[in-house]
């Protein structure tokens, strides 16, 4: 148990996970800012937030992802960025899960239109994997192991 912990908390493991999440978030953010109108419509299709707030979400969410990505990759405020990214992943996953349970046949919009992924089990599994990586990225790096 301790061995696993020490591997997970090893600064290389934690940093690799941070960079991994950072690359994914950076790509996701950049893919969305190219067509905000489409992303706004993808948010609309989830039918989870008031219509009036959809556009503000569409314009700010990609940039929050990009800033968090830069923090993770450049190792500046990386742990808070990892916590924030993981929290966002949890929220996104809940949104996908709820849409799936409601039988909505919609685009995920996770990467804008860069992937045509639909909400569904596959997406939920991908997200579960990313949350696991995000959780490791959120660990405090073990002292003296770097």
């Amino acid at each position, binding site marked *: 148990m301790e061995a696993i912990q020490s591997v997970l908390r090893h600064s290389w493991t934690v940093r690799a996970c941070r960079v991994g999440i950072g690359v994914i978030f950076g790509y996701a953010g950049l893919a969305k800012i190219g067509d905000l*109108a489409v992303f706004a419509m993808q948010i609309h299709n989830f039918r989870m937030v008031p*219509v009036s*707030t959809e556009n503000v979400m569409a314009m700010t969410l990609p*940039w929050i992802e990009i*800033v968090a990505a830069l*923090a993770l990759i450049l190792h500046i405020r990386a742990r808070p960025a990892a916590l924030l990214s993981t929290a966002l992943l949890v929220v996104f996953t809940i949104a996908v899960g709820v849409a799936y349970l409601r039988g909505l046949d919609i*685009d995920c919009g996770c990467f804008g*239109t860069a*992937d045509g992924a639909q909400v569904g089990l596959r997406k939920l599994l991908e997200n579960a994997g990313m949350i696991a990586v995000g959780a490791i990225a959120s660990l405090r790096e073990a002292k003296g192991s770097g």
Partner: protein
Amino acid sequence: MGERKRGPAEGGTIGSIAVILAAGIVLGVAFNAIGLESRPGWGIPWIGKDRAEGLVSLDGAIEGLPEIPDLEEPMEADLARVRLFHEAGAALFVDAREVEEYSAGHIAGAISMPYDVAAGEPELMENLDPGGRPIVVYCGGGECELSISLAYEMIFAGHTKVLIYTGGYDEWAGAGQPIASGVAEGS
């Protein structure tokens, strides 16, 4: 690896998260503001609105084919007007529903372009050539919003004359208008 500066103490974690969020929000708002000022504009309105409610209807007396101006948003059209376009072959009809629904029955001459597919492959819409005619997008009618979503994507893809037949296939078929079935794309 050299010893790097340690991250902020626990008390600073919430503060750092707030900084990241604030930076993202400021950048997003600024980026959109630039987008709204640009020509052609790519920013989006600050307040979202329900597209189904905000649709402008094609109205005026029904005397011959209505002229469709270049639009920045799709317009809604009713059965009477859509019929005129259909009879004259003066519009390209596009079915936004799933292929299976299209095969089961569609407006005669309509092509199939499921919204789900088109949203992931914008080139499908960019390469669509309506031959100078307006595009009439429809789905099942009633609560169906696929036609609205696809119509907006058509506008984003560069088409300027896009109509939404909100009555949809159900109203069309119910009114005894020409229908067809099968997967072959009409012309």
